[in-house]
């Protein structure tokens, strides 16, 4: 089993993802450069956080046309698991793999602090290790995380259980103060329709060891690895 972490010029959480996978979860991971045209037989792909192409034009808008993204789009269309974190989420929206867009934070300022998330759907391949309603703590670090979509899209996301994480307070309530960026419906993470692509603004890779202050993000990686082990062809 191997998970590819894509490095774009300006990615800065690629090594954190790589380390979380290799050193904490104990699974094979490799970097793929944005100019690569092959995913190298990866079983899952992670688009990490950062500021790809300096966030020029719109966050994620230029990375979306990187050579590797053609393969990522194909991989996702074939049902391959793709996780986009922060800038990775923005890239997934720009690429049309997830609906909606991430606007400038409502308060205009860059937000860098821990947030609480409520797991809204624990029946996805990324969240099976959590309980529905569980409250997680992990960091955010973004200037454009204000999730926006038209009303129809939002009600479809709600109805289909595709809102995976919502910003809440420590008690698990969606109070206005718990929403760090003005996201519609307190959305912190959404799933695509088939359920194999997850985008989220918070950083689970920065919450995988006690020394980082939280291990609440680990479940995303272990859920994914468990899913891959369960679906892997039997060794011949």
């Amino acid at each position: 089993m191997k998970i590819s972490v894509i490095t774009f010029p300006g990615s800065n959480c690629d090594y954190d993802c790589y380390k979380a996978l290799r050193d904490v979860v104990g699974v094979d991971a490799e970097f793929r450069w944005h100019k690569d045209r092959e995913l190298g037989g990866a079983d899952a792909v992670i688009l990490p956080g950062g500021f790809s192409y300096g966030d020029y034009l719109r966050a994620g808008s230029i990375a979306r046309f990187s050579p590797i993204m053609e393969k990522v789009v194909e991989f996702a269309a074939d049902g391959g698991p793709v996780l986009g974190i922060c800038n990775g989420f923005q890239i997934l929206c720009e690429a049309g793999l997830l609906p909606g867009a991430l606007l400038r934070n409502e308060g205009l300022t860059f937000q860098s602090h821990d947030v609480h998330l409520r797991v809204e759907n624990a029946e996805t391949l990324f969240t099976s290790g959590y309980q529905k309603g569980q409250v997680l703590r992990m960091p955010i670090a973004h200037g454009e995380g204000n999730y926006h979509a038209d009303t129809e899209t939002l009600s479809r996301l709600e109805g289909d259980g595709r809102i995976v994480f919502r910003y809440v307070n420590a008690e698990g309530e969606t109070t206005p103060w718990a929403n760090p960026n003005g996201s519609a419906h307190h959305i912190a993470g959404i799933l695509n329709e088939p359920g194999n692509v997850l985008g989220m603004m918070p950083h689970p890779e920065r919450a995988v060891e006690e020394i980082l202050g939280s291990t609440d993000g680990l479940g995303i990686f272990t859920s994914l690895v468990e899913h891959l082990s369960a679906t892997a062809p039997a060794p011949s």
Partner: protein
Amino acid sequence: MSRHRVEVLIRPRPGLLDPEGKAIHHALASLGFQGVEEVRGGKSVSLEVEAKDPAEARERAEEMCRKLLANPVMEDYEIQMAGDDVPEGA
């Protein structure tokens, strides 16, 4: 073929929260500029496009907007032909 100057204006869609415009609005008011009814943020991209005529240059700019320059989920765009031929080396 000649070179055509094209200005692309990209603005947040009307009705969509525009925190940047709002912040500029507040700053203008605090500087004493009264009577400013609305402020919208946005950006412009200036292009010099090789094309046989202005119509073709505009058409190509349209395609660039649809593909890359604007995101229809959050932005509207407006294309202005800034002038006719730009002399070589200008």
